[in-house]
């Protein structure tokens, strides 16, 4: 296969891999703009993936996505309960929720599906080529012949950017991430907005997990989130807490992961671990390069000190 022929499949793999990362990272943008950091995003993605398996087995594709979102919402609700209602430490709560998700999905998976594993015949989202756009040369097939959930990302990123920048609620969300005490004095319901952001982040994390199962793998495997939640949090930093930047950051990570397919297609011989490790190394490099120049929401990670 020539290098040029590999471009189309490479771009398509890039967008495919980037989709769940972008969904999860966009949700985390809301959470972090509200001044919180949810390490439990990894758990929400894994819960969403398992929810997709259960939902799709029972109620087809729609059921799969619905239960995936619901599972992510549950993880988000637990995070809100501990962090907002009880003011527990965000990092430890998030870590515990990820562990809980790993344990609960693993246990339920083995209990429900046994050691034989899940059915490999889950309904999966097919590709929905958009008329006209998908027939553009080179990029058409890659960008516009994807599962519908990818198009949701195309809409969600600019919509969130507009919402954060131009609506009253969006401005209020940013205010509570920068100066929660001042925002509260100005009459903004800080904790209610934060709970809303956490739930939205959880739902999008769940949807990201659902995408892994329903639009990519076609089945569930234990721990299949494989650190995507943490990568998504890094993408938020890389994208400087802006939805469009975050979507582009997700594409960069998608490209890094897609490199392995491209190299394999070109017959380049190298240890496969080298390809698998690229996204994690890229995360470290991106964090080191991005953090110094970007500014995080001022109140990030600090609870609202009202009493």
């Amino acid at each position, binding site marked *: 296969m020539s290098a040029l022929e590999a471009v189309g499949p490479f771009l398509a793999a890039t967008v495919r891999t980037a989709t769940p990362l972008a969904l999860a990272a966009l949700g985390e943008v809301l959470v972090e703009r509200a001044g919180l950091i949810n390490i439990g995003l990894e758990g929400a993605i894994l819960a969403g993936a398992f929810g997709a398996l259960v939902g799709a087995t029972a109620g087809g594709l729609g059921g799969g996505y619905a239960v995936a979102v619901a599972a992510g919402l549950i993880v988000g609700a637990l995070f809100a309960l501990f962090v907002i209602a009880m003011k527990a430490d965000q990092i430890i709560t998030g870590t515990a929720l990820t562990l*809980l998700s790993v344990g609960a999905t693993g246990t339920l998976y*083995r209990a429900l599906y046994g050691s034989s594993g899940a059915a490999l015949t889950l309904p999966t989202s097919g590709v929905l080529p958009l008329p006209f756009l998908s027939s553009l040369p080179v990029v058409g097939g890659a960008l516009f012949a994807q599962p519908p959930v990818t198009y949701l990302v195309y809409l969600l990123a600019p919509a969130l950017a507009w919402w954060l920048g131009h609506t009253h609620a969006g401005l209020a969300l940013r205010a509570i991430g920068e100066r929660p005490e001042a925002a509260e004095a100005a009459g903004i319901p800080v904790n209610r907005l934060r709970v809303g952001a956490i739930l939205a982040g959880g739902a999008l994390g769940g949807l990201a997990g659902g995408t892994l199962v329903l639009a990519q793998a076609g089945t569930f495997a234990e721990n299949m989130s494989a*650190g995507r939640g943490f990568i998504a949090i890094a993408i938020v930093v890389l994208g400087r807490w802006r939805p469009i930047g975050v979507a582009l950051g997700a594409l960069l990570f998608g490209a890094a992961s897609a490199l392995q397919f491209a190299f394999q297609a070109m017959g380049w011989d190298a240890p496969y*671990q080298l390809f698998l490790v690229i996204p994690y190394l890229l995360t470290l490099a991106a*964090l080191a390069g991005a953090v110094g120049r970007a500014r995080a929401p001022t109140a990030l990670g600090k609870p609202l000190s009202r009493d």
Partner: protein
Amino acid sequence: MPVIRAFALAALVVATILLATALLLALGGYDVRVALGALWTGSVGSWYALTSATLVRAIPLMLTGCAVAVAFRAGVFNIGAEGQLLAGAAAATAIALSVPSLGRAALLLALVAGAVGGAAWAAIAAALRARFGVLEVISTIMLNFVALYGVSYLVRGPLQEPTHAYPQTSPIADAVRLGQVPGAGRLHLGILIALATVVGTGWVLRHTAAGFRLMVVGESPSAAASAGLVDVGRVTARAFMFSGALAGLAGSVEVLGVTYALYENISPGYGYTAIAVALLAGLDPWRVILSAVLFAALEAGAGAMQRDAGVPSTLVSVVEALLILAVVGAQALRRRQMAPVATTILSPAPDA
């Protein structure tokens, strides 16, 4: 009567764990009596189970649990004990295989190499935090994945056994292995290394200036800096690397005392369980010993539950997670009632 209180607390924790496990088992439709029976037999029900299953697992949990406790105490969220353990295991294996003729000296070298390997792995995240302000929570988790794939590469590449049939290294020579504790099954002398290290670390934290500086920085970095007491960045970085050294030592003790070779699944997630171990111990190294034995018993028993009662062993992760949530929840509630003294350990402010 602090001793009585400590034992009462420990009994309460054990009772809570058993109750939670029983509840989860009942919810899952398992035979609670059979499953809990297997949990008991597999963990502490016999001398063999206690020594060869529980205490053997407690060794890496003591060291990694102590690693997490030291880091958290210093305000460093080191979630990377797993990767540091793997780095230590790889370094120790490389040394043990390359100079087997040195015998006992090679054993000592390999143990040190493990600690150095773990410290070096932690140093990457420490440097990223100090130089670029990278959140160590994320960097250490990324480094866990890198370490895992690194070991995967080593045991299929440069360190693979000569026949190239299996993804593992050659076995470590007898002379370079940690000996067994006489009359205690598979329990090896690593238990003494772990106990000495953890007790020593606890002593350093309580009774030395270095330990005092570490805790001051963890409690309030801005106060420590403005009081001109300490160089916050340096104390933080040192604590981070010391934490990595403890986890790395766990890795070397594991290859030299249990597996005698390096392969991919050398750790069943000791570095992650360590977080629960440290939190349950209130980040106190001495109490880590008890909490490590408790979690080791739980994990040993979980294996037996899976074998004898068909209960997925991952159920233990659920119990562990619930325990962490119970601890942080209880602390958060207590913080509301009490004056905020010494309860900021788990929520340190960022570096000044």
